[in-house]
């Protein structure tokens, strides 16, 4: 792997890592969502340092001759995992939204009932005082 690519991966990884930390600090992203992105940026940063290790894994363990391919495989794998995770979260949120819609409609009806009772009670109060 050329020096230029290593430097580029390191810089992109660093910027990425900075963005994730900034998002966490400003409460733009929740830690549970940020976890995978932190892993992603650490992986980008590690490419420049641990390149011989990745090369060894790709050639000797996975059997990929061109070591660059392991980066693509890792990135696609990461995206698949993240999309799967997000699909799960969307499903959970659908459940929560459905419950909220129902609860809101019940509360709205209860408020209406209370408002109907209010004028009757207001009328009753002066009579009771007299």
């Amino acid at each position, binding site marked *: 792997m050329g020096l230029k690519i290593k430097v580029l991966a390191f810089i992109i990884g660093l910027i990425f890592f900075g963005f994730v930390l900034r998002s966490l600090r400003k409460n733009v992203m929740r830690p549970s969502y940020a976890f995978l992105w932190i892993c992603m940026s650490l992986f980008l940063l590690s490419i420049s340092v641990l390149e011989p290790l990745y090369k060894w894994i790709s050639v000797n363990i996975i059997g990929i001759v061109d070591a660059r391919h392991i980066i693509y495989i890792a990135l696609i794998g990461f995206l698949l995992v993240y999309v799967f995770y997000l699909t799960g979260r969307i499903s959970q949120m659908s459940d929560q939204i459905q419950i909220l819609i129902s609860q809101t409609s019940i509360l709205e*009806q209860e408020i209406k009932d209370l408002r109907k009772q209010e004028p009757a009670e207001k009328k009753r109060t002066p009579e009771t005082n007299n």
Partner: protein
Amino acid sequence: MRAKMKILVAVIAFNEEKNLPFVLEDLQTHNFGYDILLIDNGSIDNTRRVGEKYGVKTLTHCINSGGPAGTVRSYFLYAYKYGYDIVCQFDGDGQHIASELPNIVEPILKGEADYVIGSRFIKKEGFQSTPIRRVGIYLFNKIDSYILGIPITDITSGFRAYGRRVIRFFGHYYKHEIYSTSHLLLLSHFAGARIKEVPVRMRERMYGSSEFTPMRSASYMIKGLINVIGSLLQRQQVRRIVESYGA
């Protein structure tokens, strides 16, 4: 004992301002002492106002919560909160007949069932649904009958009654989305509810068209099959809830 039973009729409606006056008049004329609750699933017409005009309590969804299954959650939550013993689902499109309500309530009152389906295909009287829809209904009847171990003839019927066991389970313990009538039925069965079907008559809707277009019916069948698989996979989770909390 029967006089003490609190029974709720939940009328579910989405853009049914034209059918609803007829439905509510029918329910108020054939009054069996049941409370009426209108659930407006995010209508953009005057559905809500019609309910108010007839003096019916109305739960208004601020947005459409996804088909009739989305309204199920609301009446279970409401029924559980206000201590109802029986809830009947009644469609706001005018297909259901108020005088048939005692038929679906009776098996629960007698303690014979916790989940009663009003089937239009037992006696084959009244409106029998469109041919394309009947194919889907037949397929899911067979699948669900096999899983439940009892014959089901009208799986998609919206004319249903639930007893306390089902109300408690869905109104308090089960916090996930209910996808379809088949999902609701299978989960109720896994939660220990006794299922029964009784014959009822139905009418054709008066105004408007059903949301089940041929395309939607096809998509409904595919989704329905995935829902059945999902329901089977949730069997252990449901049983765990029942065992842990006595739901």
